[in-house]
Structure formats: structure tokens, C-alpha cells
């Protein structure tokens, strides 16, 4: 899977490490009490601290520390006794202070790992820092910085707490990279530290990509790819970048270490700046913030309040509900879906049916309602009652689907819907037997052809008789019983 075969037939593999920036879902910013909120009017959540006005003093948000420790716990990090903040100096108007407060050589989390499809991928570190403001470039073509006459800055996002999670170069394919981000994302969401919306920028991914021939153990020169706004763009950009590097190397060229931007519309990466122009950030310790030494009490509180992580829950759901990994992933991909299925099981639904009907029919219901529809408020009892009607033979499985959809849509309890719609399946063998007799009498030629025919003819004629019987019952005959009765009559 991870082998890339070039046009010349040489086998290559990707070597990649990812940097994931995750906005923490605190109520306030990391160093001031301004609201941390997406989508507000520009510059309405700013104050002297996040604007870096002279004389203002940052004070660290205790929730940001707690959330970083939750991440530490979830990804098996070592939490050093002390971490400190540094100033990363650069000149760009998205940081009004001309430096970003971040962690440098003493981060809050070190040496973690995440297991993806049975492979343990190392995570070098996770450190706290502040997000930057947003710029709009005016007067140029298409809002681009090139050719702009001036820029407008909104500092609402400046100072929003970020956790930068840096992986080891352990990733060997674009699929593995996407699976890593997906697992990281669902875990960050489950532990309640971020809403992890890639499209809103609360989860941002940069990929370091190099390639090497299969069998080589060293690392090639890497390029960093930015502007990856979805798992699809991550996969596409990595595959494209790997192909670009392979072509250069096979032509005898060398890879220039540089930062490249993924262009989603044109489907390629383009150079942004080379290593020679790379910034020297002149890191130095932030004198306005004192060291953080996570207390035993806080660490114990974090451990005691950790939820079941997605990987563990997936394994448990597969075992308890007798479902595939893919079904377990589907249950966990939408908020509340797995809870719904589990609640139905507690109320007495057969586990596997509860899981499969939830993945199919509850998902379909949410799709019909469209964006923003949630599982919240849907009654798992509706599924329990529907499955009971099916197992009692009162409705067929297909009718059950119709009843459940109507119940989810608020039409009433399943039994009431069956009555209102006249869906009750005919399971009375006396009534069904009478219908089968009528069908046999009216189609004696078909019955005779069945008796004279080979397997192929028999199959066809039997299907015809079943269809006629079902038609006479307006589709409401219990199919198992009907099949049984037809077989009995034919055997006579």
C-alpha cells in the first residue's frame, strides 16, 4: 500500500511527519480574558493584552493547561515537571506584538504516541502557544498578498490557545497520514479539548514530506507543505509532492528544502520560500510568564475525568455489538450515533440490529434533515419498538425501515404508525393459506410447468407464484410464512 512505483519501475516510499495545530475550546484566550469565539464581528474580542500594548501583562489560562494535560494523557505523553514559554520573534502584522508566545525547548508534553491501524506512530511533542490574527489583502487580484495595496487585520483570533502536536517522521503513506489525523481528530474531540473543525481552521495540518527508495533507511531532503484544509487535500498534496520529488530524483536532481503551498484548485504544490530564506526566530524566554509545573492534583483530576477514547470504544463496540470495524467507525463518526445504538441495546434491542439500523437508518434520517441535524433528542425506544414489531413478524424488515423512518420523523410510536398506514403484515397462516390456494387455482398452468420443469424452470415458476401471492396480499404477506406455504403446496 505504501509503495509508490515510478514510471521507470523503481519503488519508493514516503517519509513524513505532521505538525497539527489544534485550537483549544476554552471560553477565553490563552493569556487574557477575551472570548475565544469563531465568527464574531472583527476586533470585538480584543484587549490590550492580546494586542500587545505596552504595559499589558499576560496571565496563563488554567483551562489551557488542563486541556494540554488531557492531550498528554490521551496520547501517552511524558509530562515534564516544568514547562516554560518563549518569544518567537518575527515581523508580520498577524501578530501585533512582533512575537508569538510559544513553547520552545521545554514543552508541556514530550514523547507520546498514537496507534493507527495497528502501527504505533511516535509524537515528538505537544506545546502550547497563541494563535495569530487574520489578514485580508486589499487592492490585489483575488485577495492575494501579491499586488495588494494594503492589508486589514482582525485580531479576534490572536491569542486563541493552540496546541501544536508534532509527530515523528514515522508516517509512510498519504493514507497513513490521513488516518493519523483522523484518529488524532476524533480523540481530541472525544476528550473535549477542541471542536477540531478543519474547515473553520480549528485543526490545521502541515506535512513534512520526503521520499526514499524502498530498502533505504536514511532520510531524504524534505519539503513542508502548508494550506491543507481537509483530509482529502492532505492525501492529494502528499501524493502529488511525493511524485514531484521522485521525478526530480530520478532525473538526477536534488530536492531543495523549502516550504510549499498546496493549491487545492490547481492540484499542485508551489514553492513559498526556501530554507535559505527561512526565519531565524531569535527565541528567548518570555519574561512576563513564569514556569508551569503541573501539580499532582491537576494530573490526577485529568486522569480521573478522561472519557473512553475512540480506539478503545471502537474495539468494545465491535465486540459488544458484533459489528465490523467499518460499522464501528461509522457509529463513532457522527456525534451521538454510538450512544443511540448503545441506549437501544440497554432498552432491549438485539445488539447487532441496533447497531446496523442506527448506522443506516438514523444516519439516513439525519441526511434527509441536512446540515446541523443531530442525534440529540431522538428516542432510542423508537428503534427498540420497531425491531420488536419486525421480530414479532407484524411487519417485514422493509416495512420496519419505513416505520422507523416515520417514527424518527415524529409521526408517532412505531405500533401506531403501522396501524395508521395499514402496514400490518399478514402472518395468519390460515389467511395466507387461503391466498396461496387461490393463486394456485388461478395459475394451474404455471404449477404444472413447475412440476414438469428442471431446476431453472422451477426457480422461475416458484418466483412467479410467490409474486402473485404477494401481489394479492398488497405486499403485506409475511414472506417467510408465504414461502413455507408455497413449498408445502408444491410438495403435495
Amino acid at each position, binding site marked *: 500500500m505504501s509503495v509508490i512505483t515510478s514510471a521507470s519501475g523503481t519503488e519508493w516510499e514516503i517519509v513524513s511527519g505532521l505538525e497539527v495545530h489544534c485550537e483549544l475550546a476554552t471560553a477565553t484566550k490563552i493569556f487574557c480574558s477575551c*472570548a475565544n469565539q469563531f465568527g464574531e464581528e472583527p476586533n470585538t474580542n*480584543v484587549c*490590550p493584552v492580546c494586542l500587545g500594548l505596552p504595559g499589558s501583562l499576560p496571565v496563563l489560562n488554567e483551562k489551557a493547561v488542563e486541556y494540554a494535560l488531557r492531550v498528554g494523557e490521551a496520547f501517552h505523553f511524558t509530562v515534564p515537571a516544568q514547562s516554560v514559554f518563549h518569544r518567537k520573534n518575527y515581523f508580520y502584522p498577524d501578530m501585533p506584538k512582533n512575537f508569538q508566545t510559544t513553547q520552545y525547548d521545554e514543552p508541556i508534553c514530550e514523547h507520546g504516541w498514537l496507534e493507527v491501524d495497528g502501527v504505533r506512530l511516535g509524537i515528538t511533542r505537544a506545546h502550547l502557544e497563541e494563535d495569530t490574527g487574520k489578514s485580508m489583502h486589499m487592492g490585489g487580484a483575488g485577495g492575494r498578498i501579491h499586488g495588494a495595496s494594503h492589508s486589514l487585520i*482582525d*485580531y479576534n483570533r490572536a491569542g486563541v490557545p493552540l496546541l501544536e502536536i508534532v509527530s515523528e517522521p514515522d508516517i509512510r503513506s498519504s493514507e497513513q497520514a490521513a488516518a493519523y489525523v483522523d484518529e488524532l481528530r476524533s480523540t481530541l474531540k472525544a476528550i473535549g479539548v477542541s471542536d477540531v473543525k478543519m474547515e473553520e481552521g480549528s485543526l490545521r495540518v502541515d506535512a513534512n514530506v520526503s521520499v526514499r527508495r524502498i530498502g533505504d533507511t536514511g532520510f531524504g531532503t524534505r519539503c513542508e507543505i502548508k494550506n491543507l484544509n481537509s483530509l482529502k487535500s492532505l492525501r492529494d498534496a502528499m501524493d502529488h509532492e511525493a511524485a514531484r520529488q521522485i521525478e526530480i530524483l530520478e532525473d538526477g536532481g536534488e530536492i531543495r528544502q523549502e516550504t510549499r503551498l498546496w493549491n487545492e484548485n490547481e492540484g499542485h504544490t508551489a514553492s513559498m*520560500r526556501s530554507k535559505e530564506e527561512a526565519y531565524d526566530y531569535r527565541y528567548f524566554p518570555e519574561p512576563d510568564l513564569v514556569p508551569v*509545573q503541573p501539580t499532582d492534583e491537576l494530573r490526577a483530576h485529568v486522569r480521573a475525568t478522561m472519557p473512553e477514547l475512540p480506539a478503545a470504544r471502537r474495539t468494545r463496540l465491535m465486540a459488544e455489538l458484533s459489528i465490523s470495524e467499518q460499522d464501528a467507525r461509522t457509529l463513532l463518526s457522527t456525534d451521538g450515533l454510538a450512544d443511540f445504538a448503545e441506549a437501544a441495546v440497554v432498552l432491549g434491542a438485539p445488539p447487532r440490529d441496533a447497531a446496523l439500523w442506527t448506522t443506516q437508518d438514523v444516519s439516513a434520517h439525519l441526511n434527509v434533515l441536512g446540515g446541523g441535524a443531530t442525534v440529540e433528542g431522538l428516542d432510542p425506544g423508537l428503534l427498540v419498538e420497531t425491531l420488536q414489531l419486525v421480530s414479532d413478524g407484524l411487519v417485514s424488515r422493509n416495512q420496519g425501515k419505513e416505520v422507523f423512518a416515520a417514527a424518527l420523523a415524529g409521526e408517532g410510536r412505531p405500533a401506531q404508525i403501522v396501524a395508521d398506514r395499514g402496514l400490518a403484515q399478514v402472518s395468519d397462516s390460515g389467511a395466507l393459506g387461503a391466498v396461496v390456494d387461490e393463486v394456485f387455482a388461478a395459475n394451474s398452468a404455471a404449477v404444472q410447468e413447475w412440476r414438469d420443469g428442471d431446476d431453472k424452470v422451477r426457480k422461475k415458476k416458484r418466483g412467479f407464484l410467490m409474486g402473485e401471492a404477494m401481489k394479492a396480499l398488497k405486499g403485506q404477506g409475511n414472506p417467510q410464512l408465504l414461502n413455507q406455504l408455497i413449498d408445502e403446496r408444491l410438495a403435495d
Partner: protein
Amino acid sequence: MTSSPARLTRSDVEHVAKLARLALSDAEITEFTEQLAVILEHAALVSALDTSDIPPTSHPLPLVNVLRADVVKPSVGRDELLTSAPDAESGRFRVPRILGEAP
């Protein structure tokens, strides 16, 4: 005991000035190279001491864990903030043309 670091050169000062976006004249570079070298040599005296038993200092204050509760307080009004900005447009800070890419 460690040997004292190499003496600060003109090119070190030119590099740091460039990073700090400071335009220095030749005379200033000469002057600052001498002044900064004296400061660094003074600081280097510390390296002559045996510090193997002294833990590294991360901060001059004997404080750790100065933290704040995660509670929103009203921000300063936008109009007031933008009034003190050099320039503003559409509720945003207006800045001159940006040369170069984001870091």
C-alpha cells in the same frame, strides 16, 4: 571550566540587526560590535564558575503556576481600540503593504 566563546564579530551584529529590521550605519555597527562584545564577555565570566550543582534558572522570580480562571471578561470597545490605531478600515486595523510571506 569551559573556554570563553568566540568574540562577537561585525557580521554577527549585521545579522542580528537584519533580523530585528534595524538599519545600522557602518559607524554604528563598529560601535555596537564593541559594546555588545564587552557585555557578552562580562556575561561569559559566569562560565568560569563551577555551576554543576546549580539548577538552571528559567525565571528570575521564585514563582510558578501563575494562572487565571477561564472566565470571559468584557473586552475593550472596538471603536476605542481602533481610535488609537494608526489607521483603520471596516472595523479592522489597516496596515501598509506586506512585503514577503507569512512566517
